[in-house]
């Protein structure tokens, strides 16, 4: 990789000032008699800010391009090549960081912790794909996201999943999202980044477990297309929700659908809704009854799930470094074991007060308690709404893409006999 842009800085003036407090050179420079020149410590500057903006420009450019290719050109081939580009640029060149999927957590952390602020790039990477999705559907997923791209190239022998399997597995991302938000809001961990399965491939390095997870997912991708996007990705949840209300969206047929059924099995992601026709039309009184039923069930579900989750707040909180440390310190006091973990030794040696640590840990625990209530409530809500959605069958006469789950990959377009 070229580092031509890297600038070698000489030791910063500020640090020189630090050594020269009181106008004294504190470190007696040896008296060299042979004219030896002291070398300077070379400090390489980080990637220049310009390139961060360049990344942003690439993101906007590729998003615009792919949106245009999907909605106007309706070309799967072109989408494929943009996808390859993104895979190479955001994936292998930029090593998978920064990505909108992870930026979700930075945004959460910033929203919950006023003292944390994130650079403009972090905000932009979170918001721009959402805005594009709001207007044009999930074109970001189609070919800009490197995580989607790496799976998509492996989608070689896709089989279609039964819709109930898909619905069931489709609940996982919601839980993952809830957890990611909880851990980010409590400033505990960025779990989406920690368990990003493909970033290891982009960096040619990861722990064995992460390689294994990534490898398994890529292997699954051959048969179940894009498993991470469909059944894990927490950012996908947001895009899914937003996309349902998008202004424009990829359609299978450029004009009216002729219901030829040719596209029925074209979607590897099971995102084509079949026409339901008049026979599933439910009388409105039945619908109202169901609606009332769910209005009662959902709050109950939320309460039960919330209470259940709230009982686990301690196990969740132990993900947080401070809580973990406080717990370990407490255990070490009660146990007679001689082996003291390094963390405790480091903490004690740092001279910080345990009292303060315990106080902080307690605050974090309280946050987790509340957070777990919300998490449980959220999961209950998702379950309830999923059930409700399944009872109500929308009236449909055409083959259409499911605006929520469709990745706008434009595969189905090639199957449609309507070309104009």
């Amino acid at each position, binding site marked *: 990789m070229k580092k031509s842009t890297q600038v070698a800085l000489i030791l910063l003036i500020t640090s020189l000032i630090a050594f020269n407090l009181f106008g004294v050179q504190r470190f007696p420079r040896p008296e060299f008699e042979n004219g030896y020149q002291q070398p300077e410590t070379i400090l390489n500057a980080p990637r220049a800010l310009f390139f961060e903006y360049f990344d942003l420009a690439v993101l906007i450019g590729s998003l615009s391009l792919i949106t245009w290719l999907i909605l106007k050109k309706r070309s799967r081939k072109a989408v494929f090549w943009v996808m390859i580009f993104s895979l190479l640029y955001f994936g292998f060149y930029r090593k998978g960081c920064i990505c909108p999927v992870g930026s979700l957590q930075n945004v959460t952390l910033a929203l919950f912790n006023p003292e944390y602020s994130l650079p403009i790039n972090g905000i932009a990477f979170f918001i721009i794909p959402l805005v594009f999705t709001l207007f044009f559907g999930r074109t970001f997923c189609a070919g800009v996201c490197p995580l989607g791209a790496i799976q998509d190239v492996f989608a070689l022998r896709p089989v279609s999943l039964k819709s109930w399997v898909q619905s069931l597995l489709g609940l996982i991302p919601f839980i993952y999202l809830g957890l990611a938000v909880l851990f980010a809001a409590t400033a505990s961990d960025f779990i989406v980044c920690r368990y990003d399965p493909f970033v290891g491939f982009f960096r040619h390095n990861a722990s064995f477990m992460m390689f294994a997870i990534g490898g398994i997912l890529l292997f699954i991708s051959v048969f179940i297309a894009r498993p991470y996007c469909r059944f894990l990705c927490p950012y996908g949840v947001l895009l899914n929700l937003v996309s349902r209300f998008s202004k424009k969206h990829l359609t299978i047929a450029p004009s009216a659908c002729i219901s030829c059924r040719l596209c029925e099995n074209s979607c590897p992601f099971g995102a084509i809704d079949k026409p339901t026709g008049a026979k599933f039309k439910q009388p409105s009184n039945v619908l109202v009854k169901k609606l009332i039923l769910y209005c009662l069930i959902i709050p109950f579900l939320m309460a039960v799930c919330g209470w259940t989750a709230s009982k686990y707040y301690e196990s969740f909180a132990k993900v947080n470094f401070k809580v973990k440390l406080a717990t370990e310190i407490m255990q070490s006091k009660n146990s007679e074991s001689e082996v003291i973990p390094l963390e405790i030794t480091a903490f004690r040696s740092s001279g910080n007060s345990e*009292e303060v640590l315990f106080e902080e840990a307690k605050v974090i625990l309280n946050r987790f308690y509340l957070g777990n209530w919300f998490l449980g409530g959220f999961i209950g809500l998702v379950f309830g709404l999923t059930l409700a959605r399944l009872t109500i069958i929308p009236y449909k006469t055409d083959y259409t893409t499911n605006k929520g789950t469709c990745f706008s990959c434009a595969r189905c377009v090639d199957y449609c006999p309507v070309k104009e």
Partner: protein
Amino acid sequence: MFKKFDLKNFGTDQLWNRIALVSGIFALLVCVLLIGNYIQVKKADPINMKVINSLVERLHKDPSDVKLREEIRTLDLLSRKAYFTSKWQIRTGGYFVLAAIALMVISLQIISYRKTIVPQLSPENDDNTMAYRNKTRVFIVTGGSLILATALIFAILATNELKEKFAVQEINEETPIENNSDLITQAADSLVLEIIDTTGTSNITIKHTVASAFTNNDSVNEKSAASSKDNFPTFRGPGGNGIAKQKNIPISWDGSTGDNIRWKTAIPLPGYNSPIIWGNKIFVTGANTAKREVYCINRNTGAMIWTVVVENIPNSPGQAPKVIAETGHAAPTAATDGIGVYAIFSNGDIIGLDMDGKKLWAENLGVPGNHYGHSSSLMIFKDLVIVQYDQKTSPKLMALSTKTGKTVWSTNRDVKISWASPVIVNTGKRTEIILAAEPFVASYNPADGKELWKIDCISGEVGPSVAYANGMVFSVNDYSKLAAIKIGADQPTVLWENTDYLSDIPSPVATDKYLILSTSYGLTVCYDAVTGEKYWEKEFGNNVYASPIIAEGKVYLMDKTGIMHIFKADKEYVSLGEPKLGEPSVCTPAFTNGFIYLRGDKNLYSIGK
């Protein structure tokens, strides 16, 4: 499309298939090699480092060993080479795998690209939509409720106590601070301004932590109040007030069948003192005329951790004093503050041991002039051991330093001999030591021993300690009376009194609403704490020497035959169980969360699962 070059005509499917196959196999092979390499590196690298290190150590002992030096150099070179080679291998291998997989994917993509799209019509009927949706619903409902049910079960079983534990730890934190300032004070008798400052700050911290721990006006010793979740530091619980904060205390067991008995450990020497608990350690004492011992027992296993024989104490009398059998030589319960454990015996020997049984200090307070035998238990306030020494001549209340055993203060009391233990409570405004002996119930400032108040309301040979709840002190003695004393105002007043049922050994216990009083002849009575109205009385039929303790709103009362009477502290007598220990017992129980510890005549029991 492409005119000159078209993938559709480039190579045959068969060719691409073969390429894909070969590159796939290659990638797999390299992958396996890489994993092997990875495991090897993980294992091998640190070992070499260790070998070299040990060789170098050998060389340091014999610097002239040229051969050894050469060996180290070769080994070092080899291991470093191996390290960097394997790193290189992994890197290169990684690129090979990447390239091979890329090639495989490209060829497979080309094959699929060249396949003409054959739209398939799904054979399934449209009607399935509805069925699928129903199926989905069923699966979500069953799957979801299964998960929820398991989660719920575990949620109910889950104990969340970290928060409280942290609070406990915070309180315990104050001890080192005190130590520190103490050391400073001792070091420089008259103080530099700055030092006073330091002491001042630590005082403020202590006050602060105590205040935060007392949000609900708990009526127990400050320091132990917070630690009560885990520990049971003194007789009748923290502060000696008969209230335990522990939860999930078992209500059924059987000593003869071993049912719900976690362990049982024989205590070598007899003693009527009760177990006390700190962390994983239980302490009891035992003594006969010849020998006095302190025992430390592992709370989880019942194994004896250490035994300390209390001997060679300066001024200790050669002969044990005469005591009656019902008191014995080790009646007072020991006390612990997590730093040390402190025990007193019938001959006036008092000892401070650290948690590992190392002697911190020991002395003899003078053989107590007591015709039954000294029985008042020790209490702890901050870094003081509180000793009630109401003996025949010069009765007094003393506070010894937990660190040195030196008397910090001593207050003479104009009373007759008494066998009651001090009770240390926080009355909201301050912490007081409350004691009962003929002729009065009196309160002392634990910091300096100054008398805070006293009220004449008791007489005779006082055995029961007082009980405190919600601004009320309850004192009782046989052939005297039961008095409910309202404190808080400048002068305490007797709110109500009663002479129907009087106790001479078991101490009463009180909550905000109820006063539970047991008599040594086995009758238990419950009064309204404020009005003195009697709610119920119950005859157990056996003598009772142990004091009742309230935990989770349940009263635990051990009778002399070893039957534990568990009933609700409520308006009605509701028995919750009468489990048998299978061994006579006169000792008050001790608790930790989920467990109860009982001392019988011979054995110490841990009950609970």
